[in-house]
């Protein structure tokens, strides 16, 4: 009886010892390989889950393509790039802890990624503390770069939206009654304020300026108000879900403005797929798209599209390109540091970023004294038969705007 009882105990004991031996061997053998392979560690923080997961994943994909391209071309100075990726769960507190982890524990040389100012801001504050350069992929708020954080660079800026919007409204659409609605977020609020300033300068009056919470479940009362005021052009600073709901409820209530412009979240294939034919005639702005690229960068753009499609089996969009551009800026800056035979550290990478002059499909990238891109400029697009057509500025237009858009009754 005793033997029978002891047997399983002994078996467990030996199994336990075997596991320890395997674990020991694995830990002893692994570093042999990794110690000899020199790598350059860069960090990436994105909202890979939570409410900004879609955009975070898209930026992450763009970064992945940029790093894969660089590694395939031999890396930086013969060293492969290793991206240490972290998810901030769309929460600023988590973004801070992930940035702390990357800077202090992982000892990354630089950080990229980031979507929306509420997440980019906290990351920038941490990287400044550790004197580690941070190239943000998608951030707009002016205030962020006005704090004289020499380690923060970003590939987008608010003026890139304001100028084309102001241009098309004053030069082409010339509405009699314009409404500017904006979401209660820093970027959208600032966009509305800057647009108002620009339009005022051009002599165009805004009849209705109203804030709403992103994710509002019903726009019908607001639509009734717009209809009563006979608003002919609506600029809505909401995001993809707000536009989906707004446009659907415009249709339900048979209210057709002459134009509906949504600077954020409309110029996406997924948006067009979600709304189908109802997406036609809507306006948006766009920094890049597979068919819309900075003149002279067609080849680089096609190469990115090709690499992206091979890797993810789907066409890229403008958010992917923002991730790609930010990672590429960092990689080129690091390469420039090594070309000058300087040590690869935070200070030298920061300095190389200030001198960067890089032509990318999305923009001609060089940063101003605040770390903002000097030439970031969107084009205005209109969805026509499910496709994005550039309608402004005239020198980049690929078609004519259909204005006013046909009423819902005419479409059916």
């Amino acid at each position, binding site marked *: 009886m005793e033997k029978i009882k002891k047997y399983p105990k002994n078996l467990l004991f030996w199994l336990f010892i075997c596991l320890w031996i395997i674990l020991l061997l694995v830990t002893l053998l692994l570093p042999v390989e990794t110690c000899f392979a020199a790598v350059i560690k860069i960090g990436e923080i994105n909202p890979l889950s939570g409410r900004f*997961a879609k955009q975070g994943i898209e930026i992450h994909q763009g970064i992945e393509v940029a790093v894969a391209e660089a590694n395939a071309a031999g890396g930086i100075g013969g060293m492969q790039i290793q991206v240490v990726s972290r998810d901030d769960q769309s929460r600023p507190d988590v973004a801070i802890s992930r940035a702390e982890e990357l800077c202090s524990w992982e000892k990354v040389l630089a950080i990229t990624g980031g979507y929306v100012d509420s997440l980019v801001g906290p990351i920038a504050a941490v990287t400044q503390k550790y004197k580690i350069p941070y190239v943000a992929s998608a951030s707009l708020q002016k205030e962020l770069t006005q704090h004289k954080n020499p380690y923060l660079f970003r590939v987008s800026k608010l003026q890139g939206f304001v100028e084309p919007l102001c241009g098309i409204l004053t030069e082409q659409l010339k509405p009699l009654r314009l409404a500017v609605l904006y979401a209660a977020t820093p970027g959208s609020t600032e966009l509305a304020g800057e647009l108002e300033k620009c339009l005022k300068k051009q002599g165009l009056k805004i009849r209705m300026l109203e804030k709403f919470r992103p994710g509002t479940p019903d726009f*019908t*009362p607001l639509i009734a108000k717009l209809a009563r005021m006979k608003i002919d052009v609506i600029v809505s600073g909401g995001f993809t879900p707000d536009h989906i709901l707004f446009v659907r409820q415009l249709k339900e*209530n048979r209210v057709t403005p002459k134009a509906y412009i949504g600077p954020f979240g409309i110029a996406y294939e997924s948006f067009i797929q979600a709304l189908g034919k*109802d997406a036609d005639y809507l306006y948006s702005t766009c920094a890049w798209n597979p068919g819309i690229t900075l003149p002279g960068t067609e080849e680089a753009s096609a190469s990115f599209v090709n690499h992206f499609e091979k890797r993810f089996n789907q066409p890229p969009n403008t958010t992917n390109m923002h991730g790609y551009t930010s990672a590429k800026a960092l990689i080129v800056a690091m390469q420039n540091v090594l070309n000058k035979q300087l040590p690869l550290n935070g200070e030298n990478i920061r300095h190389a970023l200030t001198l960067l002059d890089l032509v990318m499909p999305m923009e001609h990238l060089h940063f101003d004294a605040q770390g903002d891109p000097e030439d970031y400029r969107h084009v205005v697009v209109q969805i026509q038969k499910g496709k994005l057509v550039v309608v402004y500025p005239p020198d980049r237009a690929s078609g004519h705007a259909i204005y006013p858009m046909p009423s819902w009754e005419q479409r059916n």
Partner: protein
Amino acid sequence: MWTTIFISGISLGSFYVLVALGFALIFGVTRNFNLAHGDLLVLAGYSAYWLWKAWAFPFVFTFPFAILVILLVSLGLQRLFSRLRDPIELNSIVLSFGVAILIQNSMLFFFSGNYRLIRVPILSQGIRISGFYVSYSQLTLLLLSLVTIGTLYMLMYRTYLGKALRATIQDKDAAALAGINVAAMGTLSFCIGAVLIGLAGPLYGCIHYLYPSTGHEATLLAITITIFAGVGRLNGILLAGWILGLAESLTVVLCGASWREMVSAVLLLTLLAFRPHGLLGKGEG
């Protein structure tokens, strides 16, 4: 315009009612504070979306499938909840929070982070009643919420089963002493709750939109309406939903869209201050 505002307020309120009913019933009977409620709702929407998109099922036929999916998930959830010990409310919050994250990430994995919309062309059309335009989606919301509340009312107040459920809501221990199988009532409430969520989910995907993390907004909405109506008071849900919907719609027109949430919060706090047991509560402890 005021008629449009009234219709929109009532239809928004009806939408709130459909979102909140399942939560209110389950919380009333079992005292399980299900933070995964909204995620189950979105899951029901995604189930319907999948059937509609991949198999081109007519929208109406997606409801039974969504109900079935949520029924299975809810029964699994009920098994987990049944293992909880006191304090049940607190423990259920912790457990359901974990379940919510699990469901959210599963949806993100299977349906990606793209916004999805079930497009039902007929719902974006409408009719004129006495000169006023009402869209079919508003009518659907109103009718479905009335039919659901009516059916639930009949079940609760006209059947023996309903009597047993109400007894469990009022006092679990006394109900058990009276010979009512309290555990079975818990399972039953989960099943009815699942049917209600399965009914609301596809509509959510059609009238709202689907995104893996939108569930928490629906959960918050359900909690607000349940508190507003009074915990365990299903007949107050309709009134609570309509009052909130109308208040929000009127606020947008009179004060502006940015005041909407503020007015809802003030309304809720005022109610809690003067009627802590909810709209139809009688002040019993």
